[in-house]
């Protein structure tokens, strides 16, 4: 009986593979390599794109796949957001995904592991999603909160424990701050948002924040919640809570303004995040041709109109696919994402910021290398 089932499953898989191959062989290569994206015709594409990873990208991916499949009617896009960045990369390395969504680019060891999947040409990281890490809080009577990086680091390392601490009062002279204890809400699971935020703290407040940046929250004693949604619901439920979350997911919670230029506190804005990213990001050194992994130097974000904590998330894919048809599909979809249209679709539907146009052009150039 057991064998029968196995046989049936195998049959199914084989049938699916044949069907897929049949479908994709009819697909003609789309001209997705041109940087001018407005006139690209995706209607000739057909097949299934399977991807997964970063939950920060989830809302944007949903918007992108809806908009993309409206043009490419024979394409199905499956993006599994339940995996998280790490799980996405793991599954992609195992060969289950066409591309992985990840909040951090491949590490050297992951790049090595990817060689078995991608061959000698390796894998490229494409920055496709930009948003800000919002500092959300719930304090009755307070809707605007100004914080410097130092104070932020002190709050999140539990060195400041009450809302009427002199440091916070000095930065918010007009607000009436209660004696309420601060409940710091952080992520209990590994997260790209945590990696970005701890990276920000260690770069901008090195004297206060001494823990190494990373995707696991390093300090015990906080209220640790699972997932962005967990943070948002805990901050909403508690009184005197403060937490960090991807801006597109914070719903109606108030978020703090953070000091960028001396004495200027700027709130989150889509344009401010794009401007900050443009100022702070530079291409990280990479041995792989076309790799666009970014290094963000948060100390360069000093403009009064910039938002202090931009969060970039990547699409990771092989430069050489096992089947050219599948490469065409993935190129088509990622090319759409990295177009002006794609970025505005995400901004409109997921509330995210837009990747600067110069970088979008670079992504298109990198995508042209994919085969």
């Amino acid at each position, binding site marked *: 009986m057991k064998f029968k089932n196995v046989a049936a499953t195998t049959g199914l898989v084989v049938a699916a593979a044949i069907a897929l191959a049949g479908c994709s062989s009819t697909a003609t290569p789309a001209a997705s390599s041109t940087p001018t994206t407005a006139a690209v015709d995706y209607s000739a594409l057909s097949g299934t794109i399977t991807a997964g990873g970063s939950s920060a990208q989830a809302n944007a991916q949903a918007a992108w796949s809806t908009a993309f499949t409206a043009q490419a009617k024979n394409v199905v896009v499956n993006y599994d957001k339940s995996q998280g960045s*790490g799980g996405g990369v793991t599954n992609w390395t195992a060969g289950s995904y066409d591309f992985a969504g990840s909040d951090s680019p491949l590490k050297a060891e992951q790049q090595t592991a990817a060689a078995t999947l991608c061959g000698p040409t390796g894998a490229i990281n494409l920055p496709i999603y930009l948003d800000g890490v919002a500092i959300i809080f719930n304090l009755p009577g307070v809707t605007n909160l100004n914080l410097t990086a130092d104070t932020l680091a002190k709050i999140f390392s539990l060195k400041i424990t009450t809302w009427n601490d002199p440091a916070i009062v000095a930065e918010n002279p007009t607000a009436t701050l209660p004696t309420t204890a601060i*409940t710091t809400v952080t992520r209990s699971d590994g997260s790209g948002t945590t990696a970005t935020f701890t990276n920000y703290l260690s770069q901008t407040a090195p004297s206060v924040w001494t823990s190494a940046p990373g995707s696991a929250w390093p300090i015990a004693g906080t209220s640790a919640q699972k997932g962005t949604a967990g943070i948002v619901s805990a901050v909403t439920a508690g009184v005197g809570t403060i937490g960090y979350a991807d801006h597109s997911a914070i719903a109606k919670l108030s978020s703090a303004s953070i000091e960028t230029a001396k004495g200027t506190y700027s709130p989150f804005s889509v344009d401010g995040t794009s401007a900050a990213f443009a100022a702070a990001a530079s291409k990280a050194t990479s041995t792989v041709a076309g790799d666009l992994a970014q290094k963000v130097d948060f100390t360069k974000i000093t403009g009064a109109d910039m938002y202090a904590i931009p969060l970039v998330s990547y699409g990771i894919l092989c430069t050489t696919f096992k089947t050219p048809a599948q490469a065409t599909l993935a190129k088509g979809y990622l090319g759409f994402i990295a177009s002006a249209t794609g970025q505005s679709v995400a901004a409109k539907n997921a509330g995210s910021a837009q990747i600067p146009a110069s970088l979008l052009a670079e992504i298109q150039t990198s995508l042209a290398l994919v085969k």
Partner: protein
Amino acid sequence: MSDDMTSATPSPRTTSRDSLKNSGSAPQGGGAGNGGASLRGSRVRPGDLIFHSLSTGSAIFIMVILAGVALFLIIQGIPAIVADWSTDPSLHEGFTLAYNNFWQYVGPLLYGTLFSSAIALVIGAPIGIGIALFISHYAPRRVAGFLGYIVDLLAAVPSVVFGLWGIIVIRPFLLPFSEWLNTNLGWIPLFGGQVSTTGSTILAGSVVLSVMILPIITSISREIFLQTPRLHEEAALALGATRWEMIRLAVFPYAKSGIVSATLLGLGRALGETMAIAMIISPAILVSIRLITEGENSQTIAANIALNFPIASTLQRQALIGTGLMLFVISLAVNIIARYIVTRGSAGGGGKKRKRPTLPITPMSDTSATTTLDIVTEEQKLGRIAVNSRAEGASV
């Protein structure tokens, strides 16, 4: 008087059951062995052969699976268990940064797993047993059937749903209660510390966990309670026991080890629960007995694996698998203890049904009662109702 009842009643049943079993099984066995063979001839029917090999295969299969899982956990876990965590580069980072060796990491996790399950059991077991008792002995038949169905339905609720329910309903619900406990009973270490403002406490997690283990405890104890011989119950009632006295004197002694094993199976469920705990509790890897704080909730093994698996490097993943091995060992230990309690309860072992009656001290029995019941038991084949009416008549 009623004490005499309980001690007296079970012993005859032993005899009856045993004799029944013996008289039943002995001739049957003989018949199947001799008569069957001679009648059918020596040819083995294909149906028999297929069914025999299928069921044997299934039995072997489950053993192989279990051994395979154990082997997998050991082989995968060993590298991280023996590694030096303070120097190994891939363990000296991320979520395993603060620990010098595997035991330092798994110790608080083991504690947290046992602690949260213990609280869940303290809350859930009495309620589960209470529901089972209501269904089996108090509720009208129609209500009992419906209630039993509802409780079984609880087992089908996915734990993610329980997790969401915990976040949205139980956390805020417990908040005022936690504050009250902290203000008034804060001197008890359990309720001390900085009280949580979001409700993300081990108390909230354990309350949800206790609801999750209800179906197991309830359905097993209900079955055990229903197996209490009517004879015992009717006899107790006939001797003037109230409903509660009857349950205390006839049902509980009979069901004692059944309740223990139901509870331990519930514990097994609680130990392995992942999703709801991961969603509700704000975890930290430390040993703490505080129930209502935000940052001092001991993390459980299963939730810790779920939360950290996606970001783990190869060796960190092996460390998590190592903690999984420890969970496997505790679950095994819990099951062994459950078995031990059940067999010890039966004084001499054997099947569930036979062991119970030997529990009470037989020699104390009142002669007349024994005789009466002995007479009854000989006619037990006539059916339960007949027996009951006889017993009632006899003891009255």
